[in-house]
């Protein structure tokens, strides 16, 4: 019976090509607009570290005070003084400080021009905390952190450029005139959004090239390659002056496994801020925050407003297309009241009529979905128009999106067809037969 209904449906669709095209196009456009914007939204609003996003926290301490802070919120990063004080006590299971650094790989062998490299100065805990996958070697140890060793972990991409992808662990590389021993090579790794550094980035960047020990970077007096936000008088001129200033540039992260650990760390933060107040460094009450990855992504507004807004508008557009489809299906089905009357008189049940028209609608939905798929494919390659390339390249037409497009088109059309099919099934056979 299903095949027969499908055949009937197809015939009926062919009978009114203009109306059918109209419905198919409306569904196609509606579903495509929604899917294109959804693909971008999905990319930017994803959870970059799903299994640990509830255990990684970034502590914030207000060192600026109510006059100069961000409308009551502490700065989004720490200054050197507070960052070092928080890390000195090993209060969390794992903890790291990090800031963005820029270095150049000096010419060597066949390369006669230097290479630019962007990376992070981090603690050894960074790698297990953020689940950085290694291709060769491993992270450096806490001893390396303490001994301020000249070691480095490089990315798969940089390893490809420098060593042709070979196992380079143990070899040395010249960054800006200093030699570093390579202890590890990561697999391609670039969590997006880059939750661990939303202070210096918008969350969507090219992968980092290297990671070096935080203490080593301080020894070399490496200024941050990212953001540096200051309050108060900017009268410092030396490195030490900068370290002691009210400038924030270090992002701290801690790993806390249980709710009790979180509560205890929060108390620790508050007592630290209270101590600073007592010592006269802060003349305001403790103002601290401890946000996990999800809360941090939310607070930093990682999802661009364009993404949310265009998704909203597209969904509205899709809704209108569906209302349009309801109207057109209603017209189409009821136009065949005579036919329905005959079938009902010949013994078809309401349920059968209902099924027949729903199947016809599903065919329309499927056709709309296919049109939508083509438009989505075209649109996904065109999202570069609306979003910066770093975000646009995240939007891709994968299997799940193809499946979702077809599914949404069919399900939405079926929803739209419920009422028209119900009306069709309620056609009174006697009335129709009489007027014929």
């Amino acid at each position: 019976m299903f095949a027969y209904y499908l055949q009937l449906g197809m015939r009926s669709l062919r009978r009114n090509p203009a109306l059918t095209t109209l419905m198919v196009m409306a569904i196609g456009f509606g579903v495509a607009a929604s899917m294109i914007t959804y693909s971008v939204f999905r990319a930017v609003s994803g959870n970059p570290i799903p299994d640990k996003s509830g255990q990684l926290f970034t502590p914030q301490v207000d060192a600026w005070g109510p006059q100069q802070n961000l409308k009551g919120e502490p700065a989004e990063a720490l200054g050197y003084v507070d960052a070092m004080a928080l890390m000195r006590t090993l209060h969390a299971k794992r903890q790291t400080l990090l800031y963005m650094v820029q270095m150049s790989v000096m010419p060597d062998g066949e390369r006669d021009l230097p290479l630019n490299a962007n990376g992070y100065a981090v603690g050894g805990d960074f790698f297990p905390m953020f689940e950085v996958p290694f291709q060769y070697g491993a992270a450096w140890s806490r001893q390396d952190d303490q001994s301020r060793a000249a070691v480095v972990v490089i990315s798969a991409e940089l390893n490809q450029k420098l060593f042709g992808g070979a196992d380079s662990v143990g070899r040395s590389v010249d960054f800006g005139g200093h030699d570093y021993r390579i202890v590890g090579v990561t697999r391609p790794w670039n969590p997006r959004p880059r939750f661990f550094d939303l202070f210096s980035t918008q969350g969507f960047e090219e992968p980092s090239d290297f990671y070096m020990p935080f203490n080593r970077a301080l020894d070399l007096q490496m200024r941050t390659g990212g953001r540096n936000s200051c309050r108060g008088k900017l009268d410092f001129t030396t490195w030490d002056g900068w370290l002691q200033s009210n400038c924030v540039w270090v992002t701290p992260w801690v790993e806390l496994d249980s709710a009790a650990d979180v509560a205890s760390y929060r108390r620790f933060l508050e007592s630290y801020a209270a101590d600073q107040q007592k010592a006269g460094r802060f003349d305001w009450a403790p103002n601290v925050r401890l946000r996990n990855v999800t809360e941090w992504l939310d607070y930093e507004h990682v999802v661009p407003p364009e993404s949310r807004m265009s998704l909203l508008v597209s969904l509205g557009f899709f809704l209108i297309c569906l209302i349009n489809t309801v109207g057109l299906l209603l017209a189409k089905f009821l136009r065949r009241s005579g036919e329905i009357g005959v079938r009902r008189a010949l013994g078809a049940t309401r349920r059968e009529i209902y099924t027949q028209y729903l199947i016809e609608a599903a065919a329309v939905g499927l056709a709309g979905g296919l049109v939508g798929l083509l438009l989505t494919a075209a649109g996904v390659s065109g999202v570069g128009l609306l979003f910066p390339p770093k975000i646009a390249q995240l939007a891709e037409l994968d299997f799940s999106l193809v499946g979702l497009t077809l599914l949404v088109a069919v399900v939405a059309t079926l929803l739209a067809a419920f009422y028209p099919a119900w009306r069709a099934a309620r056609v009174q056979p006697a009335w129709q037969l009489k007027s014929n």
Partner: protein
Amino acid sequence: MKLHPMIAALRKHKAGVVLIALQIALTLAIVCNAIFIIGQRIDRVNRPTGLDEGNLFLATQQWVGAPSADTPDGVARLDAMLKEDLAALRNLPGVASVAPINSVPLLNSSWNGSVSTKPDRKFSDKGDNVRTTYYFSDENVLPVLGLRLVAGRNFTAADVQHQGFRDNPPRPIVILTKDLADKLYPKGDAVGKAVYIDGSGSPSTIIGVVARLQVPGSGTWTNNFAWNSTLVPTRLNANFSRYAVRTKPGQLDAVMRTVAPTLYKVNPLRVLDDDSVKSFGDIRAKAYRADVGMAILMGVICLVLLSVTAAGIVGLTSFWVGQRHRQIGVRRALGARKVDILHYFQLENLLIAGSGALIGIGMAVGLNLALMRYYEMDRLPVLYTLIGVIAVLVLGQCAVFVPARRASNVPPVTATRAV
């Protein structure tokens, strides 16, 4: 024509009427807001920067193994390297003038602070402080960027100092934009007066005022100080540098291609990547990409939406015309003219579209309020709603015309036939 029988007739088609009205209401809500967004984005993109934007490009480079900018000796060496680069660029054929500069409008890399007419102000002192962006450059900045001096004088070579990137030495003279000068000295007599930079205690004398110069930030966060720029006659010395270059007319591409080889010839220990040499046109396009994209997206959605709605009206009205074939025949037989039938359907559509539009106004305002709450949007002006209402009513009339004409062509003889 009386409305009463028409409304009675519509009651027979409740579902269809509700659907069309709802569709028109939603269309109105989205189209009004979309057009408003398009208008706002176009306004933003069309803001003049104050620059002569043609024949202008920016080169950014980074030295490798450069001396530290934290020591006086390092600063001196960095400055010598900077001057070497400037001389090499200046000697290129096709180059009109070159200036070192820390940023240009729309580049989204900026050094911001605040200036005051009083010394030793704290950041927290509201009112006295006016937010500004600093441009650090030399005496060539006006001709290179194409800025128009409206009062006072330009910098001279003797005015230009140099400093390490992180230093904060006193700044004896500055040039301000007219917007900023007028905020500090509303009487328009800023030239010769003093300003205090970032809460400093030492005065900076305003020696000139330029007509307009936008800040580098293009985001909405700069909206309240978009024209407050301060020009400082200082070469910044760091391990990287930027050069704004004005070429002779028509030679932009040719000169841009020679920049990287020229600089590498001066000193190969530096990094210049694909992004390093950018025409101002590219900088502008990148800064406003999201705005232009949003305007195009909204435009496309509006067009498709209006087409879908129009097609929906055509479809449903055609269906009604088919259903009422016999009644139309009867009316015609009883003396109604073709034009009466035409008007009937037109008026019917006006009635439905009108009620849809009324609901739509509410929805448009609601959507606008929601957008205002979550995004940086302004209140939807009444004008846009009115334009939207007229647009959907006209759309309805256009869409109904074809089926209504077909209805008016139903011959009176239909009345005598069983359908």
